[in-house]
């Protein structure tokens, strides 16, 4: 997925209430936010519902954003907060037995089995990680952002990102190396990954 770069002029116009700028901003960032909502959870919340709430929050309160340069970090913080809220709501509903708490949602309603399987595998990896490592893995490994870019988004020092990344990598290695039941045949998985290089 191509990552959009924050456009300060567009963000400033949107913050002043320009409807066309808001629409453009929505089109640009909806895929990014949907991706974040997909991978920041372990597959139990509905990512589209969460992304919808994030974008509505952002579009209605963008006037309060003082520094357009901080837009991406603000968007990420809002996404984290909304995903957390959806998780809590899910837990609350599970208390009333409306939904099984551990129920895995089908992320591909159009019935794409291959995509469904891929998401499930990634969720099984990310779902075992604490939130801070999951965020770094999403930004630095899945989205291939640099440590400094991730540090700016997460509002933490670059050194913190690097140490979290190191821990996340080591866990990923352990998980993929040992848990063959989840990954199916890791050898074929790894060889297919290598074939893409």
């Amino acid at each position: 997925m191509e990552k959009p770069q924050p456009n300060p002029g567009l963000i400033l116009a949107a913050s002043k209430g320009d409807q066309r700028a808001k629409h453009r901003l929505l089109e640009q960032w909806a895929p990014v936010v949907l991706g974040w909502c997909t991978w920041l959870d372990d597959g139990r919340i509905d990512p589209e519902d969460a992304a919808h709430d994030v974008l509505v929050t952002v579009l209605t309160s963008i006037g309060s954003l003082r520094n357009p340069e901080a837009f991406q970090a603000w968007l990420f913080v809002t996404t984290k907060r909304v995903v957390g809220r959806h998780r809590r709501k899910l837990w609350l509903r599970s208390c009333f037995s409306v939904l099984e708490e551990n129920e895995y949602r089908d992320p591909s309603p159009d019935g794409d089995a291959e995509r469904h399987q891929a998401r499930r595998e990634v969720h099984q990896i990310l779902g075992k990680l604490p939130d801070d490592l999951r965020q770094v893995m999403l930004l630095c490994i899945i989205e291939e952002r640099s440590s400094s870019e991730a540090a700016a988004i997460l509002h933490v020092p670059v050194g913190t990102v690097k140490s979290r990344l190191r821990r996340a990598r080591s866990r990923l290695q352990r998980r993929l190396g040992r848990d063959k039941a989840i990954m199916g045949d890791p050898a074929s998985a790894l060889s297919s990954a290598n074939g893409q290089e």
Partner: protein
Amino acid sequence: MSTPHEKWLQRRASVGAVTSGEADRLVRRVEATMEYAGSMDGASWWSRAWTSPGTLLFVAAHRRAMVGLAAILLASTLALGGSLHWSSARLDQFLESELATTLSPTPEVALLYTGSGRIQGRRKSPRIDWRVGTLQVSVQPSAGVDLVVETDEATVQVHGTRFSVTKDLLGTMVEVENGLVGVTCLNPNAASSDELFLAAGKSHRCLPNRPSTLLGRARALHSMGKATMARQAAQMGLELASPGDPVRGELLALQVEMLLMDSLTEQAAGLVKEYLDEGYEARREDMQQVAEILRQRPTGH
């Protein structure tokens, strides 16, 4: 530089990545919500959440639990206070009484008043527009109540206390019994329009800020027989009015009349001279006669 494990994760994530169809559907959904929000004329998300189909289904599925919860809440509220007071409840009540009357518009505020005014605002931020008479206010300390009393001449800000505001013809008198009160006199000609903080036992009077208003009030007080207050109002008006202003001439004439009634001839003679020197015409003949009489009489009090 990615390890093979990371490459595998990237590949699986890209297979399971968001499609353009999903993103388009999300964009349409957000646009629809924003349009709906725009047509709601400021209705809160909270109110819309309560009327959303999901919420209604949830409530319907657990109606017994909801009814039980509501009953428990109501019972505990009644047991605690006996009545419901919400911080957002709007206040709007006229205060009108010739006899001393007590009123507790909110649990944190008690009023004792004689006169007329109106209380508006919300429970945590009541505003009292006090027109005439005496109003005693008692506010529960540290209750987060931001109460303000406004008169023509002053704004009184409460800082958790008991105080009284007397609005009469001369002006507004604020007297503090307990705690601390901030008073701002609405007088642009005053040296400072900053908030004046009054501690317990202190008082402050805010006077009108226009010479014509003070002239009217001085005349009214004089006709009511309140000589001291009338002279105070006239003196205040004289300090504000510029030489040559006809209002100043009237104030001088009134002050002369009041001083003569109190046999303060020496002060009266000084003001008569000011009247004649500044060239006012309306009461010139009267003032010349007074000057003549004062010259013939021995000076004294």
